[in-house]
C-alpha cells in the first residue's frame, strides 16, 4: 500500500482545530468522533483530511457508511491508473478522496459506482483519457437531457445513475464521481464566456500520469470551439483560477487613486452577453486599493458602486477592452 506522506503529515489535524470544528458540527459530531476512534493509519489520516477540508454542511451530512465508502474506496483505487509518484498526494486528496463535484448532497457512491463501471468498461484500459472518454460517452448515452427546475437541487451520483434523465449539472456529477470511484483524479471547471451566446459553462479536467491536467469537453454541455471567448475559468474544487491554461490572458490593474474615497465602494467586473451583463463574482475588487485581475481577452464592464444612505446606489461604469496578453489600467473616477 502506498503511504500517504508529506502532505498529510504536514497537515495533521491539531487537537485545537479538531475541537473547534467539532463544535461547529452540532447534530452530527458523533459520526466524526466515532471515526476518529475507529480508523487508524492511512485511513485515519484521510478521515482527518476530510474533516478539516470539507465544507460545514458536508460535515453535517456525512454518515459513517459514506465516510467508510469514501476513505476505503479512494485508498483502494489509488494506484490503479497512476504509477508510483505520478499522482501527487495533494491531488489524491483534493481530486480523488474529496468526494464533492458540484452542489450535490453528501452520499457514499464509490463502492456502487466502482462495481457498475467495472462491469461496463470491458475490455479495460489503463489509459486515463481513454477511460474518461468512454465513461463520458456512456453517461451521455444513458441519460436524456432534463431541464433544471426550481424544486430540488443537484441529485447525488447514485440517484442520477438510477434515473433516465439528468440536468447537465447532474450528468457532470455522475461523470466526475464515476472517475473518482475508478481512481482517476478529476475536477470540475466552471468558465464564463463573452459573446452573444456566452454565459456560464462547465467542463472537467482529468490528471494524466504525464503530470498535467487535460480538459475533457462534456457532450451534454458544449463549450465554444477552442474555448473562444473565455473570460474566466475556475476550479470549484480548489478555487484556483485556471484561465491562462485556456486563453492568452491579460490583466486589468486597479489603481487606488490619489485620494481613496471615504465611502465604501464595491468593484465588480461583468461580461456582456445577449441582452445584458453577467457579473464575474470570482473577480471583484475593492476600490481604493491596488488590485489586479487576470482575465481572458475581450470586453468587460467594470462597475464601482456605492450604497447611499437612502438605499439608492450610485454606479460608475467603464467598458474596458482587454487584448491577448494586454495590460490595462483602471482608475475609478469617484
Amino acid at each position, binding site marked *: 500500500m502506498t503511504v500517504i506522506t508529506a502532505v498529510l503529515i504536514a497537515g495533521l489535524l491539531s487537537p485545537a482545530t479538531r475541537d473547534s470544528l467539532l463544535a461547529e458540527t*452540532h*447534530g*452530527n459530531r458523533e459520526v466524526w468522533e466515532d471515526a476518529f476512534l475507529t480508523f487508524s493509519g492511512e485511513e485515519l489520516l484521510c478521515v482527518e483530511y476530510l474533516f478539516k477540508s470539507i*465544507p*460545514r*454542511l458536508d460535515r*453535517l*451530512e456525512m454518515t459513517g457508511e459514506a465516510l467508510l465508502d469514501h476513505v476505503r474506496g479512494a485508498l483502494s483505487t489509488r494506484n490503479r491508473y497512476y504509477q508510483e509518484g505520478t499522482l501527487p498526494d495533494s491531488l489524491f486528496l483534493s481530486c480523488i478522496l474529496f468526494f464533492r463535484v458540484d*452542489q450535490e*448532497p453528501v452520499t457514499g457512491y464509490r463502492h456502487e459506482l466502482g462495481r457498475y463501471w467495472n462491469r461496463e468498461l470491458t475490455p479495460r484500459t489503463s489509459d486515463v483519457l481513454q477511460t474518461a472518454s468512454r465513461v463520458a460517452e456512456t453517461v451521455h448515452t444513458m441519460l436524456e437531457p*432534463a*431541464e*433544471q*427546475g*426550481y*424544486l*430540488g*437541487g443537484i*441529485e*447525488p451520483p447514485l*440517484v*442520477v445513475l*438510477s*434515473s*433516465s*434523465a*439528468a440536468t447537465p449539472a*447532474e450528468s457532470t456529477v455522475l461523470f466526475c464521481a464515476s472517475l473518482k470511484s475508478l481512481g482517476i483524479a478529476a475536477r470540475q471547471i466552471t468558465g464564463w464566456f463573452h459573446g*452573444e451566446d456566452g454565459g456560464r459553462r462547465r467542463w472537467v479536467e482529468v490528471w494524466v500520469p504525464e503530470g498535467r491536467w487535460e480538459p475533457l469537453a462534456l457532450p451534454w454541455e458544449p463549450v465554444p470551439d477552442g474555448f473562444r471567448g473565455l473570460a474566466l475559468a475556475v476550479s470549484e474544487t480548489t478555487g484556483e483560477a485556471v484561465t491562462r491554461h485556456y486563453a492568452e490572458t491579460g490583466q486589468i490593474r486597479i489603481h487606488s487613486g490619489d485620494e481613496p474615497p471615504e465611502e465604501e*465602494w*464595491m*468593484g*465588480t467586473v*461583468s461580461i*456582456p*452577453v*445577449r*441582452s*445584458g*451583463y453577467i*457579473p464575474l*463574482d470570482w473577480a*471583484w475588487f475593492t476600490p481604493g486599493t491596488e488590485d489586479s485581475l487576470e482575465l481572458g481577452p475581450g470586453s468587460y*464592464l467594470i*462597475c*464601482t*458602486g456605492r*450604497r*447611499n444612505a*437612502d*438605499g*439608492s*446606489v*450610485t*454606479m*460608475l*461604469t*467603464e*467598458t474596458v477592452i482587454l487584448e491577448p496578453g494586454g495590460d490595462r489600467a483602471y482608475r475609478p473616477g469617484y
Partner: protein
Amino acid sequence: MTLLLFLLSVLSPEFCLEHLLQKSPGADRHEPNLSMILENVELALHTRETMPWGPLIPDSVFLRHVLPARVSQEPLTPWRPVFMEHVLPLVEGVSSIEEAVLAVSAWSDSITEYRPTQLRDQSPLVTWSSGIGRCEELTVFFMDALRSVGIPCRQAYTPWWLTVDSNHAWPEVWTPDGWMCLEKVSTEDRAPQENWFTERARSSGLILAITPDSVGEALSYSAGISFLPVTSSYAKTGLLVIECDSSEVWVNVANYGAPRRLLKMDAGLRRVELGEGVYLLTWGWPVRSAVVEVLPGAATVFVPGETGEIPEEMRLNIRRREE
C-alpha cells in the same frame, strides 16, 4: 358547508402521487426518492383527514401548498414523519389555522436561529439538528413544520432587495381569509409591525411567490412551477410596459456593486408590476441599455431601440428623497 367540502374532495393517493411527480424533478420517479415521495403523499392525505382545518382547504390549495415534498432546492429527505411526531402535539386542541400557525412559529423560533451558512440549501432535518440556517433554510424548516400538520404555505422571495445588498426568502401562510406573511405581523397579537423586513419589503422591486402548478396569473412557468407576482402585497407598485415585437429585455437592479438581473421580459411577458424604483434595462446584442423609473400607480412604457450606451454614471434602485 364544511362537511360538504370534505365530501366533495375526491383526492386519491394515486392522483396526488401523479400530480406531485409532475411538478417534481425526474429523479423522484426512481428509488430511493420514490419511496420518500410515496410516504409523503400518504402522510399528507392522512393529515388532511385528521386535522380540524383539513376540510376548509380546497383541493387546489392542498395539492399546491400542503402536499409538496420540497419547498426549494433542498435535498429530498423523509422530513414529514419526523416533523409530524414533534409538531402534532403542539397543535392538539387548536381549532383554527391562525392559532396553529402561531404555535408552530413559536416552536420553530425556539429551536432554530438565523445564521449565514453556505450556497447549497441544507435539508430541514439538518437545520433542525444543527439549530441554524440562513433565510431560505429557515423558511424550508418552518414551511415543512406547517405542512406536517396540514397547514398550506408557500415560499415568497425577492431576487434582490433595492435598498440593501442581499436577497431574501420567507414563508406565506394560507388562511381562509387569504395569504398571510408572518414577517409583517407580530406573532403575539397578529397586529402589523414595523421591523427590518417591512421597511425593506416596502421598497422592494419584485416579490414572487412559488406555486407548484400552472397558474394563469404567473409571471413565468417552468418545470411545473409558477412564479406569481405578489409585489403589490408589500410595496407601492407601478407598471413597466415593453413595446416591441421581438426583443428580450432584462430588468436589472444594482446589488453588490453590479447590475444584477431581477427579471427577464420576453415576447410572452410585456407588462409587469414593479415596486417604485429606478431600474437599468438591457437588451440586444451588442448590449444596449436605458435607465427607467417606475412610479406608483403609473405606467412606464419603454420601447427598446437600436441605440443605448450604458451610462458612465447612474443612480439606481430608489429615487433619492430630496429630488
